[in-house]
C-alpha cells in the first residue's frame, strides 16, 4: 500500500529524517515508535504531503507520490490525523465533521457517516453545535479521528493519538483505533506509548535520531530486551 525508500526530510534546517525505508501492506497496522525528537512526526508529515522530502521516494498504491501536496493525497484515500489534533477551533463540531467529508459529494453517504461517528462517539453528538476549540483534549482527539473517518480513508496516518490524555480516554481512543483497523483501514501509527502501540499493531519500526534502527513483528519487539529496556521502561 505504502512504500518508502531512502526518505530524507529536513525540518527547520535540521536533517530530522536521514534516509529511512519502510513499508505498510494493505490492511496492516504498523507502528512507528521512538523517543521524542526521533523524527516520527516529521516522517508522517512528509508522508501526508505537509513537508517536502529532501530525497527519497514515496510510493502509494503503486504510484509515485513524492512531494505531492496533502490535498491531492487525501483525495486518494491517504489521511493524517495530526499531532495535537489539528482542530478548526472556531468551527463547530458538526462543521469540523463536514470538513472531514470535504472531498465527498454524496450527501446521503455523508449524512450516514455523520450518524455513524456520532453513534461511535456520543460525546460528539451531544456537542455538535459547540465550537471545537471549547472541547476537552480527549473530545478533540475523538473529533480528529471522527473527522478523518468522514473522508472514508483507505489508509490512516495517526500521530500520537494518546498525547496528553487521561488513561481512561487513551483506552477509549485505542479501542476506536482497533475498531477502525478491523474494518480494513490500513494504518501507520506513531506513538510515544510504545507498549500501547505494539499491542495495537502487527509490525513496528523503531526510530532513533532520524534513522530506523529496528524493524520486526510487534510481538517480537515486545519481548526484545533492548526495546523493553529503552522504550517499555523495564
Amino acid at each position: 500500500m505504502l512504500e518508502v525508500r531512502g526518505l530524507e526530510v529536513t525540518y527547520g534546517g535540521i536533517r530530522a529524517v536521514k534516509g529511512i525505508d519502510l513499508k505498510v501492506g494493505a490492511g496492516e497496522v504498523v507502528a512507528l515508535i521512538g523517543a521524542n525528537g526521533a523524527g516520527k512526526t516529521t516522517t508522517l508529515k512528509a508522508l501526508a504531503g505537509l513537508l517536502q522530502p529532501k530525497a527519497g521516494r514515496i510510493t502509494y498504491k503503486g504510484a509515485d507520490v513524492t512531494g505531492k501536496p496533502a490535498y491531492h493525497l487525501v483525495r486518494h484515500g491517504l489521511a493524517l490525523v495530526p499531532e495535537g489534533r489539528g482542530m478548526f477551533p472556531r468551527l463547530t463540531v458538526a462543521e469540523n465533521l463536514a470538513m472531514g467529508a470535504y472531498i465527498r459529494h454524496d450527501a446521503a453517504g455523508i449524512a450516514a457517516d455523520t450518524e455513524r461517528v456520532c453513534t461511535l462517539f456520543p460525546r460528539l453528538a451531544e456537542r455538535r453545535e459547540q465550537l471545537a476549540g471549547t472541547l476537552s483534549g480527549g473530545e478533540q482527539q475523538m473529533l480528529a479521528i471522527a473527522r478523518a473517518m468522514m473522508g472514508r480513508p483507505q489508509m490512516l496516518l495517526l500521530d500520537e493519538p494518546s498525547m496528553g490524555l487521561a488513561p481512561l480516554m487513551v483506552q477509549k481512543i485505542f479501542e476506536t483505533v482497533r475498531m477502525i483497523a478491523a474494518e480494513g483501514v490500513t494504518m501507520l501509527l506513531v506513538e510515544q506509548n510504545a507498549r500501547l502501540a505494539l499491542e495495537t499493531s502487527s509490525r513496528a519500526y523503531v526510530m532513533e535520531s532520524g534513522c530506523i534502527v529496528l524493524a520486526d513483528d510487534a510481538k517480537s519487539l515486545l519481548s526484545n530486551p533492548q526495546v523493553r529496556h529503552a522504550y517499555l521502561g523495564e
Partner: protein
Amino acid sequence: MDIFAQQLINGLVLGSIYALVALGYTMVYGILGLINFAHGDITMIGALVALTILQGLAAAGLPAPVLLVIAGGGAMIVCAALGLSIERVAYRPLRRAPRLAPLITAIGVSILLQYSAALVWGKQYIALPKLLEPSAIDIAGAQLTTLQLAIFLLACAIMAALLWFIKTSRMGRAMRATEQNPDVAGLMGVNTNSVIAFTFVLGSAIGAIAGLMIILYYGIGHYFMGFMLGLKAFTAAVLGGIGNVGGAVLGGLLLGVIESLASGYIGDLSGGVLGSNYRDIFAFLVLVLVLVLRPSGLLGQQNGDRA
C-alpha cells in the same frame, strides 16, 4: 431640515459603501494575515472601468438600470481578474516570507495600480454623464434620494448574501477552515491556494460594486480616489475587528455615520474655524482611538494573534 437625521442617512449610505470595501480587507487579512493595501486601488479601477463603460454607452439610449448592470458587471470582471493576478504574481511567491515583505509589496502594488490608472485615464477628474433623474423621499425632515436608497439596499443585500455564503456554503466553510488552520485544511482535501485565490476574486468583485456606487454617489472619478477610500475602509475593518466579516459590516456603517455626523456639526462646534472639508480627520481619529483603546476591534477576538 433636520441636520441630525440628514447626516444619519448620508452616513449610513456612505458607511454601507465603506463596509463593502472593508469586507475585501478583512477577508484577505483573515485568511493570509496580510493587509492588502492595494484593495482601495482595485476599487478605484472598478470605479473608473464602470465610469468608462457608462460614458461609452451613454449615447446608446439604453435604460439606466441596464446600463448600470453592464457597467457593474464589466467592473466586477475586470477587478476579479485583477485581484486574481495580483495574488498570483505579487503575494503567492511571498507566502512563506516574513510578514513585512508582502506588506511592502502590497504598498508597491497600490502605487502601481494608481499610476497605471493615471496612464490610462489621465490625472484629471472624470465626470459621470447624467444618467438618473434624482428624486427624493422625505423622512423625518431629511431627504433620502432614490439613489441613496438603492445603494444602501444593494450594499445590504450583498453583505447579507456574503455572510450567508461564508456561514453555510461548502466554499465558505473551506475559507474559514483555511483561515483557522491552513495545514489541516489541506489534510481535509482543501486546495488552500485556490481558496485564497477565490477570496481575492470575491473581495475584488465586491470592491468593484463599491467603486460603481462611489462614482454614482459623487458623480466623479479620479486615479487617486482609491487611496482615501482604501484607508477609510481599512479603518472600518480595524474598527469592527479585522479578520471578522461581521465586524467589517458594523465598522463600515459606524464609520460612515461618525464621519457624517461629525462633519455636519464640526462647523458649529469649532465656531466656524473648521469646515466640513475636514471630515477626513474623523476616520483617522477613530483609527487612532481604536488602536489605542481596543486594538482587536469591536467584534475581534480579545486573545490570540489578531491585529
